[in-house]
Structure formats: C-alpha cells, structure tokens
C-alpha cells in the first residue's frame, strides 16, 4: 500500500467521522438534512476511492446507488416531510450539545481502541476503515439516543447505515447483491418511518418522542 492512496482513503473516512460530528452539532432541522446529504456525498467519494484502489468495479455501482438514494432522494424526501410537518425549527436534544460532543469523542476513542486491538493482522486500509466505520455507527446511535425529534432520529438511523456501507466497502469489497438488498431495505425502512412520522403526528400533534412516553404512562 503506497502512502498517497492510503492518505486519500484516510482523508475521506476521517471526513465521514467529522461530518457525523457536524450532524450532532446541528440545531436546525434543515441544516441537519443538508449535513446528512453531505455525509452521504462524502461516503460516495470514499466508496468510489475504494473502488479505484481495490480495482473493484462493482463498488462504483455501490457509490452510484449511495449517490442517488442517500445524497439526493432521501434528503429531498425528508425536506418535503419536514416542510409538510412544519417543524423546521425544532430540534430538541437530551442534554446540551457540548456534552453530546464529548460523549461522541469518547465513542470515537472507544471504537479506535477496540478496532486497533481486534484486527492487528488485517490490511491497514481495512483496519482504518473499520475503525472509522464503527465510530460513524456509534455516532449515529448516539444521535438517535440524544434527539427527541423523530425526524432527527430517522437521520441518525440513516447515518448508521452509512457507517455500515463504509465498513463493508473497506473490507475488500461488498458483494453487489448484499449492497442492493441493503439499499432497498433502507429505502423500505425509510418509507415505513415516513408513514409512521405522519401517524405519530396525527395522533399526538407532535413528532417529539416524549409524547409517546406520556401516552404509555411512563412519565407522569
């Protein structure tokens, strides 16, 4: 592995982690969706670079699917959902943004410690991609935990999936069938989540997930 290709892969994967932090940092829904589209775009660049480095042409198809579906279709659809729900200003976080950031840094450090210990013999590129992918996944989970708004929880879910694709492409290419099936299952999940959003909205007049707790009687 000569160093420049490694450095560029490092750049894109590190950029993906950085964009995940930017997702955690946003406090407006439209800005959140734009950053999510940016994350998908960085993922596309990263996957395309992996395809070039590994000489695996089917990864270009993965990149194309990610570009169309995740960078264009899903953010656009979320934009329309947010516009129709009329909630573009409300993102409520559990705890402050600062403490969420610190927790995120802790998660990144954790994923690096775990991955670097667990995969000593693997290819450097794959190791680094796995470490970054695990941190993107954990940051997506953190985002789902720390947001009360259902739309931003959806964004957290989608960014977890971005992390999975990064992991899959880093480990010597993902079979195309798996990639397509994941893409379609995410699309289906997205449609179901969208329908649920509107159902929650109809039932409770809000998409704040605290309303569900009230309904179940878990909070007085």
């Amino acid at each position, binding site marked *: 592995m000569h160093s420049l290709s490694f*450095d*560029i892969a*490092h750049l894109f994967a*590190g950029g993906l982690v*950085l964009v995940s932090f930017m997702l955690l*940092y946003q406090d407006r829904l439209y800005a959140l969706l734009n950053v999510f589209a940016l994350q998908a775009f960085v993922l596309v660049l990263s996957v395309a670079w992996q395809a070039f480095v590994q000489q695996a042409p089917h990864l270009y198809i993965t990149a194309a699917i990610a570009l169309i579906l995740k960078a264009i279709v899903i953010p656009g659809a979320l934009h329309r959902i947010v516009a129709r729900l009329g909630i573009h200003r409300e993102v409520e976080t559990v705890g402050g943004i*600062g403490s969420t950031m610190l927790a995120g*840094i802790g998660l*990144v450090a954790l994923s690096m410690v775990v991955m670097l210990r667990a995969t000593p013999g693997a290819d450097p590129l794959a190791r680094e991609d796995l470490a970054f992918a695990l941190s993107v996944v954990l940051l997506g989970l953190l985002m789902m935990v720390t947001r009360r708004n259902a739309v931003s929880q959806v964004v957290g879910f989608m960014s977890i999936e971005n992390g999975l694709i990064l992991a899959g492409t880093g480990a010597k290419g993902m079979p195309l069938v798996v990639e397509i099936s994941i893409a379609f299952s995410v699309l289906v999940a997205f449609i179901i989540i969208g329908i649920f959003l509107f159902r929650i909205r109809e039932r409770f007049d809000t998409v704040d997930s605290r309303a569900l707790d009230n309904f179940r009687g878990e909070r007085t």
Partner: protein
Amino acid sequence: MAVIADLAIQGIQMLLVLCLAPALTGFVRKVKARLLRRRGPSILQPYRDLWRLMRKEVVLAENASWLFRAIPYLIFSATWVAAALVPTFATGLLFSWSADLIAVTALLGSTRFFLALAGMDVGTSFGGIGSSREVMIATLAEPAMIMIVFTLALLAGSTQLSSLAGFMLTSPVGLRVSLGLALIALVMVAVAENGRIPIDNPATHLELTMVHEAMLLEYSGRHLALIELAASLKLLLYVSLIGCVFLPWGLSPPGADVSTRLVGVGAYGLKLAAGGFLLAFFETTVAKMRVFRVPEFLGAALMLGLLGTLLLFVSRSL
C-alpha cells in the same frame, strides 16, 4: 562573529514583530472598511493612536493597586517575547531552543490571567463582567490550543516551533486529515483569543457583548497604549503561528545568506497580508455571536482538536 550575527538576526526578528503588529491591525481595519464600501482610516492610524496615547497623562482610579500599574508592562513584555519566539522569516534562530509551543501558550495564558486580574482590580462592575467572560472563553480556548499542540507534536515529534516548521518543510507529510482539523481548530482559537468578531468586537463599547474592552475601561495613557500594542502583537503572533506551521514556504533555514533571508521576509509579509485579508473577509461575512453561544463555538474547536489527535493516532499506529 557568528554569535553576533545570530544575535542581530534575532534582534531584527524582535523589532520586525514589534513594528509590524500595528500595521497588521491597521491593515485588517482598512480591508474591513473597504469591504463595507467605506474608505477607512489609513493603515498607519494605529501607530498614530499609540503615539497619541503615549503622550497623554495617565489617569488612575484612587483604589488602583500597584498591580494595576504593573500589569500593562507585564502583558506587553510577555506578549512580545511570545511573538518574537514564533519563527517569522527564519527558522533556527538563536533563541529557537526556547520557542516551544507549550511555552508560547503558557506566556499567552499568563497575560490573560493578569489582564483578568486588572479588570477586577479597580472594582467596577464592567471590569468584573469582562474578566468573568474572558475566563469563560479561556477555559475552552486553552484546552483546544493544547490539543492542537499535541496533534502537531505527535506528528512532528517535537513541540519546538523551528523543528516543527522544518519538519513541515522537508519531510513528506502527505495528506493528513489531522492537520486540516488542527488548522481549522487553530483558526477558531485564534479568532476567540484575539476577540475578533463572532466572539467579541473590540471596536465597540456595547455592554451586552464586550469582553476584552470591558477589562480595559479603567486604563488610560501609556498603560492603554501598551495593552493595545500587546493586543496587536497577539494578532500578529497567531497569524505568524499559522503561517509558520501550516504554510512554512519561504522560511529561511539556519545559516542562510542575506538574499534567502530577504526572501523569507518577503514571504512573511505576503503571509501576513493574506492572513489579514482573510480575517477581514471572514469578519465581514459573519455576525456577532451571543455570549452564551461562545462555548459551543469553542467546544467545536476543542472537539476538532481532540478528533485530530484521535485520527492521527489511527494513521500513525498502522
């Protein structure tokens, strides 16, 4: 003979820093005014201001202690030393063994400590507000700065500025995310430390937002001149720090001849102009931030610094 030449070059650097600092401040003001389609004062205006303040009588509050009078000299000398330690046009100067990034950070931290003390010394309410806000900013800016220093030190294997610049110049650093993150974080810290616009605006006296200015309200005459000059020096220090670490081109190596040194001075001037222009451009495009949002801004800088260190750890350990 060589020692005398080295001493002379170090002296030139100290004088250059001192003479250029007000010009940089004036340049930033001029560019800002031009970007707002105003004419703006001349670049030499800060020199005239300093000269005017120097000649004026010092008016002291009755209950000002000796500390209040000593602090301007302390702040000025510490900032000057720090600014003169950062390599401007040449690396490997006579005192470069002491040009340690941690030492520079510590010098700046102690000036901030003394300035906050001075703000509280006379006992007016504005001084207290300014000091408390300054310390709040410091609690986040200093760890961010230290994380940046760690990132650079891990990469170059040294915290000495001269060897850092030399490392960046000679060895194939490659494309590194950590360096980019460190650069962004350093710019954010520099903006906060110098009280530039999203954080603070020293050009106004608006009590809701002022930080740096509130601490200086009781100063007058030559004391105020010294503190203003120290603020200019601090701005110059950060610009030359960014220039020396991230854009080290044109720095003359130790023991270079006169023409190389002159090229170094020219490159330094270009870097200062570019830095000043970018700062002015940035300041005209953003709005002033609420004081309560400052921790988020600096928290982002701290986060970038931490992330830079972590990413570097991954790329190095492979």
